């Protein structure tokens, strides 16, 4: 018996394994956790069914089309339209974007089926599998299986082998793993990260499609069932630590076995409805808490959610509030005069708005994404109903409901908060499902499917059975919550959280720790959602366990984030939109699928504008103003600017601040503002103007073939300009040392030279050809190579694989550096710092680049190793490589340099032959005095 459960459990697990592998693969390679993975499986299965039934194609061909052609193509399309943008957006946008897709994609598929009159994909459609139909039973190891099950298992085994071979033994696999390991470094090694992401998405979608097609004879064309399948696969992916495809695969298989054993041997759990169904969810929660503790982010996408600039900051307070006051007045007039039904719709919208305010607290301020908000609302409403039915006074019942929501919020927040980001989101998802499947199934709590009736809330002169009263009451409550949120934002803990959110590393170094404040926020948000849930129940007159399903929480999140989650205004607008939109669709007689598609499609918009519609409006207004303003300024300052071509007038607005970009090990950007004191400013300005003619002149004189040149480079990060007109030239066989104080712009210069940071003005020339527009990987392929600050190795790849990212055959590298040959199968992360630096430079010795840019190559190395590193540079110079050497410690650099350039405040203040550098110049360069 037990053998039978294990064998047939492995077959079940094969589907989880295939789907989970796709999830892990795409997440690890791109940093986007795709909640829509199940939805891709569903639409692939739908296509399989339609190819089979409507087009009459043989099942194997249909499967090939759906999983082998359509799903990868869909993956590519989504990469272009959405995932590519999401990878650079914040976590919130990523989660919401893919959840929007989960809603939109199946709806789109079903709409197409409806509109084009294809065979309906409802509960009566019984899709077949790939094998013979009906499936033929077979005995395997004494277990009765059928052909569909065997095909499923076979396909997953082939997939596993194929994936392994692809990842380990093809250049694509190596590139993908390099991108997973260190995305930025990979682009510097000539790997097109974007193309690699595209491959990852195609592969991931293909796997989702395959799992979808394999599962369809069992699940039917049921989008919900595919979402359930996604949760099981996510459990497998979590046990693979969202990183290891083989572990995910194994975990998927094991999950199938566990499910079978639980179904077979746990009749004692039958009393607790839903508990056994919820086994994958419980495992998901356990896996998150136990396995994913304190992991740094996996891929190198931007993690911080720095708040967008407040574009309305300059607008007077009355002007900021005027539109809201007018809207409020309009709403009140409408409430007083409009027909009852539509006032009811508005009241419903305000109930949602109140619930949505909790997103402002938890997501807008706290930067956490909570998918369980519907569960908190339902929790409060059911508790309130239960308490009232037990004979408690109504007001006490409401208070109890809110407290219950707070308590559950605390319960989730405590273990999950240390985990951060996506893990917290997945944990809240697990909680939402647990609440739906287990807690709300307890009859004593939810009163079965009938739920609890609730009376209207009376105020003596009026009660909430009148929608007008509800509108006024809700507006008052939303006003209170808004004030609460405002005070919170201004409080010390609110500011601490914003700081932690915008720049985690900087906040840690400033001694800010947020867990307590975050728990407080989470609990508060749960309480607000609970209050909203209680009012939902009161205005409906009853509450049942299915009134606020977990899936509603996903749609809510999409709606409110789309409007802008950082302010209460976004929540209010979101609530009204969520209530009015279905009305409009019904009035225009549009399919309900269209609504789902539109709400979901908001996710794609989010990929481009992560801060929502309201912020977008404000930014547009700001841009318009600024354009008008800068035109005026430009007219006034043209004569002054004409002296320095390539310096846009806009850059001058930023004041005398130099900002250096310093990339941390996680690849995230931590901004260190290096404010120059007021006294230094005039000196610097005069130094710059005095010195600037000389480098330009010398560069002009040197201009010739084979030169790598930066001309008048202006670059920075966002609104912050770092480089203000860098001019540099490096010739073959020449070492140029770039020296300067911390924050002068050296690393940014390197990044610009390698194509890692885009320029706002100026040109980058290689052999006289303008390569300014080339992305990093293309420049690397053309021979402009950056050895970045820190170590330029992929710690998760072996020494051999590291070399292969640049060299087709690593043999000669081992001949040059025998110490690496001895450790070829060791992970580069396990090497010593010196060995890592040698590994970084080894490929250059074998296949010398045209230009090598080394950013702080001696940082943190023992003197002996430093000497070895500089010997490498000397050799490269002899072999005709143009070397740009960046060093904070000047001594070693000066020893090999032919020419020297000093950078200060984003400009080259002096450049000339090594021989002309003396102590005075050095002092001047570093201290800014002359």
């Amino acid at each position, binding site marked *: 018996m037990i053998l*039978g*459960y294990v064998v047939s459990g492995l077959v079940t697990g094969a589907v989880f394994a295939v789907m989970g592998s796709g999830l892990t693969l795409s997440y690890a390679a791109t940093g986007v956790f795709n909640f829509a993975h199940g939805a891709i499986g569903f639409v692939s299965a739908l296509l399989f069914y339609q190819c089979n039934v409507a087009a009459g194609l043989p099942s194997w061909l249909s499967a090939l089309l759906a999983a082998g052609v359509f799903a990868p193509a869909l993956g590519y399309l989504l990469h272009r339209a959405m995932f590519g943008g999401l990878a650079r957006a914040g976590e919130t946008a990523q989660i919401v974007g893919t959840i929007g897709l989960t809603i939109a994609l199946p709806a789109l598929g079903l709409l197409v089926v409806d509109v084009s009159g294809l065979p309906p994909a409802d*509960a009566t459609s019984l899709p077949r599998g790939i094998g013979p139909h009906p499936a033929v039973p077979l005995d395997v190891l004494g277990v009765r299986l059928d052909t569909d099950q065997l095909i499923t298992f076979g396909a997953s085994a082939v997939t596993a082998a194929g994936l392994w071979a692809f990842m380990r033994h093809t250049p694509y696999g190596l590139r993908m793993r390099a991108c997973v390991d260190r995305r930025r470094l990979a682009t510097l090694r000539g790997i097109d990260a974007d193309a690699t992401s595209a491959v990852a998405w195609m592969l991931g979608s293909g796997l989702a499609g395959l799992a979808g097609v394999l599962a369809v004879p069992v699940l039917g064309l049921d989008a*919900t069932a595919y979402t359930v399948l996604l949760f099981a696969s996510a459990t497998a992916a979590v046990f693979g630590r969202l990183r290891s495809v083989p572990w995910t695969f194994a975990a998927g298989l094991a999950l199938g076995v566990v499910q079978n054993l639980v179904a077979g041997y746990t009749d004692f759990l039958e009393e607790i*409805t839903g508990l056994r169904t919820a086994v994958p969810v419980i495992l998901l929660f356990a896996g998150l808490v136990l396995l994913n503790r304190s992991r740094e982010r996996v891929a190198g996408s931007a993690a911080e959610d720095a708040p967008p600039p407040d574009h309305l900051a300059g607008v007077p307070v009355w002007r900021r509030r005027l539109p809201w006051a007018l*809207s409020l007045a309009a709403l009140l007039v409408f409430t007083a005069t409009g027909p009852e039904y539509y006032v009811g719709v508005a009241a419903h919208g305000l109930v949602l708005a109140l619930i949505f305010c909790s997103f402002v607290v938890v997501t807008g301020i706290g930067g956490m994404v909570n998918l369980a908000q519907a569960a908190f609302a339902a929790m409060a409403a059911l508790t309130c109903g239960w308490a009232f039915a037990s004979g408690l006074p109504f007001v006490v019942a409401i208070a109890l409901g809110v407290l219950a929501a707070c308590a559950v919020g605390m319960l989730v927040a405590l273990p999950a908060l240390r985990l951060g980001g996506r893990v917290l989101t997945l944990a809240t998802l697990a909680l939402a499902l647990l609440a739906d499947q287990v807690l709300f199934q307890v009859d004593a709590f939810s009163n079965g499917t*009938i739920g609890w009736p609730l009376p209207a809330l009376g105020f003596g002169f009026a009660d909430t059975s009148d929608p007008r009263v509800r509108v006024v009451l809700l507006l008052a409550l939303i006003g209170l919550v808004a004030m609460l949120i405002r005070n919170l934002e201004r409080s010390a803990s609110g500011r601490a959280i914003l700081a932690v959110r915008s720049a985690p590393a900087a906040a840690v170094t400033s001694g800010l720790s947020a867990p307590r404040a975050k728990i407080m926020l989470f609990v508060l948000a749960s309480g607000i959602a609970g209050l909203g849930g209680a009012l939902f129940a009161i205005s409906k007159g009853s509450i049942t366990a299915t009134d606020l399903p977990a899936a509603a929480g996903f749609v809510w999140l999409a709606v409110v984030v789309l409007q802008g989650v950082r302010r209460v205004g976004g929540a209010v*607008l979101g609530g*009204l939109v969520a209530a009015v939109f279905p009305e409009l669709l019904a009035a225009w007689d549009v399919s309900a699928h269209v609504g789902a598609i539109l709400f979901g499609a908001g996710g794609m918009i989010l990929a481009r504008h992560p801060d929502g*519609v309201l912020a977008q409006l404000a930014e547009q207004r700001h841009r318009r103003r600024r354009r008008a303003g800068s035109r005026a300024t430009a007219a006034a300052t043209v004569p002054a600017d004409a002296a320095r071509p390539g310096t846009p007038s806009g850059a001058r607005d930023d004041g005398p601040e130099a900002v250096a970009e310093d990339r941390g090990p996680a690849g995230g950007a931590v901004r260190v503002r290096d404010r120059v004191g007021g006294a230094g400013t005039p000196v610097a300005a005069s130094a710059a103007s005095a010195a600037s003619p000389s480098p330009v002149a010398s560069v002009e004189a040197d201009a010739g073939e084979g030169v790598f040149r930066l001309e008048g480079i202006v670059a920075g990060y966002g609104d912050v300009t770092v480089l203000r007109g860098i001019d540099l030239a490096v010739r073959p066989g020449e070492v140029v040392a770039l020296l300067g104080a911390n924050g002068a712009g050296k690393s940014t210069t390197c990044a610009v030279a390698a194509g890692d940071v885009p320029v706002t003005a100026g040109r980058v020339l290689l052999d006289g050809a303008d390569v300014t527009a080339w992305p990093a990987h293309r420049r690397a392929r053309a021979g402009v190579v950056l050895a970045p600050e820190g170590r330029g190795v992929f710690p998760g790849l072996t020494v051999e694989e590291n070399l292969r990212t640049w060299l087709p055959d690593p043999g000669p590298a081992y001949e040059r550096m025998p110490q690496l040959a001895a450790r070829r199968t060791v992970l580069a992360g396990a090497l010593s710092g010196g060995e890592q630096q040698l590994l970084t430079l080894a490929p250059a010795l074998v296949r010398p680049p045209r230009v090598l840019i080394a950013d702080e190559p001696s940082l943190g190395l023992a003197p002996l190793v430093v000497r070895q590193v500089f010997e490498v540079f000397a050799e490269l110079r002899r072999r005709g490589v143009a070397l740009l050497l960046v060093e904070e410690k000047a001594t070693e650099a000066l020893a090999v340099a032919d020419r020297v350039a000093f950078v200060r405040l984003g400009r080259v203040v002096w450049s000339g032959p090594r021989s002309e550098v003396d102590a005075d110049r050095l002092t001047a360069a570093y201290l800014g005095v002359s």
Partner: protein
Amino acid sequence: MPAVALVVALLAGCAAQQKAPGAGGGTPGVTDTTVRVGGVLTKTSASGYSTKDAEIGARARFERANAAGGVHGRRIEFLGAEDDGQDAAKGDAAAKKLVQKDEVFALVPVHAPNFGGAAFLEQQGVLWFGWATGPQWCGTRTGFGYNGCLAPKKGAGSQTWWGRQMAELLGGATGKSVYVQTSDSSGSKYGGTTISQSFTAAGFELAGVNSGLPAAAPPPDWLPYVNKIMTSDGGGPPDVVVSVIAGTKFNVGLYAALKRAGYRGVLTDATSYDTAILADPAGAEALEGVIAAPMFEPFESTAPEIAQLKADVAKTAPGTRLTQHLAIGYWAADIFLDMLTKTGRDLTRERFLATGNGSYSYENAGFGRIRYPRDHSEPNGCGALVKLEKGAFTVAKSMKCFENVPLR
């Protein structure tokens, strides 16, 4: 933001556009020549479950009534049905829309497993007719299930027709064992209780009740469930397996797995009476021999009421496949019309409600008989059996009513 104002303006625009009906003081939805009704159905849902055919059934019945001159000189103005998407909150919104905006007199047909508008309709005193599968119908004044309340409370009457019809069909229940399979949700478990009781009341021996099946999606692997069934009756298989799981995919999966494991006994459920399943060879093979238990007279019956139903549907929507949901919509509309006729020309909601709840009784071969207010709290106790033989449904037992027993 101005956007809020825009939303308000849209609302106001909608409101202005819809202001037209409702002119005139009298009973909402009733004029001298018309009675306006509309329904709420689960037309679409994420799980693919759909009751949309009930709209066709109701329309067919109303069109016959209108062709015959209406009821007391009033034509039935049928607005069609709203879709609740199997979402309780949407169902509530749909009920409010029909009552407040469209100003219907009553809701016909309401056929949505998660219908959320019950509290509102009860509070407004608006009558609603349909299939009372959930407890939200039961104990109300205004909810009229076409075959009574199918979710009685403990102590109220619970049906025995399924077990007794089965016993008659199998030539007695003595010594025969029955196994009831439900899924892991409180609704399905409740169904397991009432149906087990129906079979034990008829004399069957209960071999087991299992509620282990996951509720949201069919299990990828049926082996553990099939193993339990095959050993439930003292180590061997039971004589009868009753499936109380909604969804064709569930039943087809369970039956196919049972047959693969060598089960030769009787399979029965309430939802497999659907010719659409027969179009698929695997579905037809899995369901072959299954005894389905519809709560209306089967379409294969020779009763004149069924011939009339077929004629009505053929007239309204030629070529429509006859389904369970269609029959439910049809009979719900039929009861509404009968109640409307018995209320008389002077029509208000209060008078209509008084008729319905004042010892109302109506017999029809199509659904047996219905008695209100009694059937607000218990099912009407009637049902039929059909058997799938060689790819076609045949009437195994015609519609018959039995006494209910108190639910334990």
